[in-house]
């Protein structure tokens, strides 16, 4: 039976336990974006992100019976993805951003051609510096700024209090900024918002 689009994660998990591959596919489609984007930014490598995304969902499929319904499915899924990414990261090598994709992303952020060079430099340096951060700081920055999740959800996914998430985020951001500062070309007068 085809699962309805608004079926909850719990209902889909029940379907998976009953051997329903449609339910599994629906669950993958619902969450693959978050998992893939997290892994892409965390690992800095699209090929590895694809492989680990697949591995994450296969583990969910195999261990669906282990999920505790009292806990958020997203938190459980992200815990699996993080654990796999951490163990895989030792073998993974971050790669530079694809120039074509980067150009598209820059146009999405600012269509002004005169800013393209600067944004390209910023994005390249941020991508490289992110890979140098400790795992704990990298994952929270990825979740907050690259997955654009609100802080309370980041705290829930990391299974830490919101206050802890906040202080960790600020430390991580300051560390990334300190790494970035000497790499950026000399600044002019600060006139625009940093938000």
């Amino acid at each position, binding site marked *: 039976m085809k699962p309805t689009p608004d079926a909850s994660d719990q209902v889909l998990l029940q379907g998976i336990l009953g051997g329903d591959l449609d339910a*599994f596919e629906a669950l993958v489609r619902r969450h693959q974006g978050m998992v*893939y984007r997290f892994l892409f930014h965390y690992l800095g490598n699209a090929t590895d992100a694809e492989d680990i*995304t697949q591995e994450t*969902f296969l583990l969910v499929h195999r261990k669906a019976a282990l999920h*505790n319904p009292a806990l958020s499915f997203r938190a459980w899924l992200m815990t699996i993805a993080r654990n796999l990414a951490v163990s895989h990261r030792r073998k993974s090598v971050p790669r530079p951003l694809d120039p074509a994709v980067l150009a598209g992303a*820059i146009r999405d952020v600012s269509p002004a051609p005169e800013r393209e060079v600067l944004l390209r430099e910023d994005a390249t340096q941020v991508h490289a510096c992110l890979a140098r951060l400790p795992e704990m700081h990298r994952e929270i920055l990825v979740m907050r700024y*690259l997955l654009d999740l609100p802080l309370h959800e980041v705290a829930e996914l990391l299974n830490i209090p919101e206050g802890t998430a906040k202080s960790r985020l600020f430390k991580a951001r*300051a560390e990334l900024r300190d790494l*970035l500062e000497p790499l950026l070309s000399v600044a002019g007068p600060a006139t625009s918002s940093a938000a």
Partner: protein
Amino acid sequence: MNCQDFQNGLDTRDPYTPSAEEQAHARTCMACRRKLEASRRLLEGLAVVRGCARVPDLAPRIRQAAAAAGPVDAAGPSLGDRLIAWVQFLAPTSPLKSSLFYAAAGSIIFVLLWAVLARVPPRTEGPAAAGKHAWQMTMLHGGQPTVTGPGGVAAAPEAGTTFPAGAELAFPPASRARFRLPGQAEVEVEGARLTLQEYGFRLSGGRAKVQVRPVSEGAPAFRVLTPLATVTVMGTGFTLELSERRLLVQVSAGRVQVEAGSGRKVLGPGEELRVGPSGWEALPGSDASSTVVPDSDRPEVPQD
């Protein structure tokens, strides 16, 4: 605004938008301007990087792999998995959970502390506590005593003189003084010769009126040793008058046990007793409620 304030603002706001004051400071401070510019470019760089993740449709490929991998592992979670899941569930990750978590932790700590502290006897209830509190003497009338053994330490006039256990004091006849073991006992002596002990005293002559706070069950009792008898406090107030050949014990409140010769007697309120070298000396009407216990049942009395 100084650089520290600027940095604090930069590092503790999400999202960060510099105030007019912060922008004004950045215009005058090169280091802060660089930090502000780095923050701005960091967030812009993150916005670009965010758009670089083009999510492929992995669902068909993952479905195929799942179908090839075989059926779902239907075994439920192990005990360890359940335990970890519950620990994760109870972790203080939301304001409500945090409140409950810290309230529960605080209650447990309070109960444990209370359980430990409730078992510790108050400092006023035994010789161990008495050892930490020396006797304080205040002269009421007459001349100062002659002191041998550990000497007294003069304190403020109203606080009197402090004596440790072991001090021997001999008062001139008719000279009166009050001894206090703070929170535990008060003794008024007249023309007395006494040796102070940690939780009691040895009376060698003279008169002593004793008021002792009741001790908890099982705690060592306050004792007065005399050449003729040992008086153990089981209640609160009594008077001792010791001459060369006779000890007079008068109880005003509570109960007192007197041990002499071959037995012991327990005196209640209003009762009195005389003890001579040959043992008990009868007093008219004083034997009604006194109990005489054979010598074999007598508790051991320290003979220091």
